[in-house]
């Protein structure tokens, strides 16, 4: 990031720290905490923790049990 961008991001983050309206901002925090865009992406998009749910779904949507999702289940022919 160029210095102007860093300055703008830091100013935006300061608003959060000072506790006005914004409670948190994942994107800004990642940028400021990491100090560079690549590290920020590591923080933001790394799916390691999310990929591990053993219902198979990383989203907090409980997709396999939600009625709205029509009760999707493992279409496993071996189990009938």
């Amino acid at each position, binding site marked *: 990031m160029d210095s102007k961008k860093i300055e703008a991001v830091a100013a935006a983050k300061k608003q959060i720290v000072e506790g*006005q309206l914004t409670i948190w901002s*994942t994107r800004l925090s990642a940028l400021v905490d990491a100090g560079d865009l690549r590290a920020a*992406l*590591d923080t933001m998009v790394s*799916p390691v923790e999310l990929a591990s749910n053993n219902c198979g779904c990383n989203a907090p949507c409980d*997709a396999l049990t939600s009625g709205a999702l*029509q009760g999707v289940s493992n279409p*496993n022919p071996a189990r009938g």
Partner: protein
Amino acid sequence: MVSDRLFQWSRYTRAVRDGDGSVLLHNSFMGAVARVPPETAAAYSGLLEEAMPKNREPASVSRFSADAIADLTELIRQGFIVPCNISETSLATKVLARERQSVFNAIILPHEDCNCRCVYCYETFARGRMKPLVAAGVERLIARKAADYPLVTVSWFGGEPLLAKDIIFSLSESFIAACARTGATYRSGITTNAVQLTPTVFARLLAARVDFFQITLDGDRADHDSRRKLRGGQGTFDRILTNLRGMLDTEATFSIRLRVNFDRPNLAGMNRMFERLSETVGDDSRVTLDFHPVGQWGGPNDSTLEICDAESAFDTKLSLVNEAVSRGFSADQIRDAFQPHGSVCYAGKESSVVIGSDGTLYKCTVAFEDDRNRVGQLLASGDMIIDDAKWDLWTNPGNFADGKCSSCSYAASCQSRACPLAAMNSGEPPCPLEPDEFTDLLVLAARRHNEAQPEHAA
């Protein structure tokens, strides 16, 4: 500086009311949440109302100058409000696509059998330990991807991955070396039943740079042991707790997500589980609790499982989160839903693949027996032979730009990819959160955040 320009709500912003008269704003592209205090919310009620529908057509939102929102100008800098003259959807879609593909994620199944037979399990255990030629292919594949991607992540999954500890240790060594050669960042986690996660194994895993552990406890001892049994029927609770204690006795840097699957019968024992966990975990911030309703996931016992119905499951989950945090446990995963990419399933990502122990390539870790999910084969050379048509079913939701997703404020969090399997089965991308669930979860997450950081408290 900004006073001559016209602004409007970002299409990714959505407002919900909290009970105290304040209004919470969430922006799914920024992964940001703001709280407009009651007095200000009352003064700008008309404007805030505009941002409350989950789906909004661009023509339905008003345009205003910065001067007209003098108390809310912070929201411009924070991305909740954007200039009218930018093509926000186009810009954000490009950024999100680039971010989605900035990491290569491999979910590796070193062993597809398991030492447990959990009552709700959906796996067939038909394929066993990873063959040497497949492991050689995985090693070569990751070496190539380390040269192509700035970030490589590996999730060890199964079956029970610790049945093939030696494969995890040797492949990890190779992955770490490959990433060191190219400068790629390497991260790794494991989903394990923790039965074999003794202090010695834990230390070896840490040395192999595995620093995220998902471990499951299904309530207190009796409940857990009747659900998560060894193949011979013996309980696993005490062994898991002992291993957990061993991990937490170290000063190492790692994180544990303790997944708690709940159903109707085990809810009564949750308080006892909390008490027992308090003795083991205390206020150790390395441990986060994560609650999920048991589902009929396709296993042989589905018809006998006493699962919670969909409506009560979400409320139960929220009350368990509340109980956990009031007892001092961390349950920060509730914030995941509000991050950009936070509800995107790995199966929907172009650069994520599941590698079976026999080299079969999948996209999803639920539907191993579904032919649509058998998207290719890994060769010993490290080449992936991919069926493009099948791959496309998972990674191209098609109607991100059309249909209900095109006007949805939550689109940057789910990107129409919350569950490609459900999308295929039902013909349209599922919404990961119903409107009421979104409101309840956002209110809870914001309140929890304030309580955790008193300097931000209203």
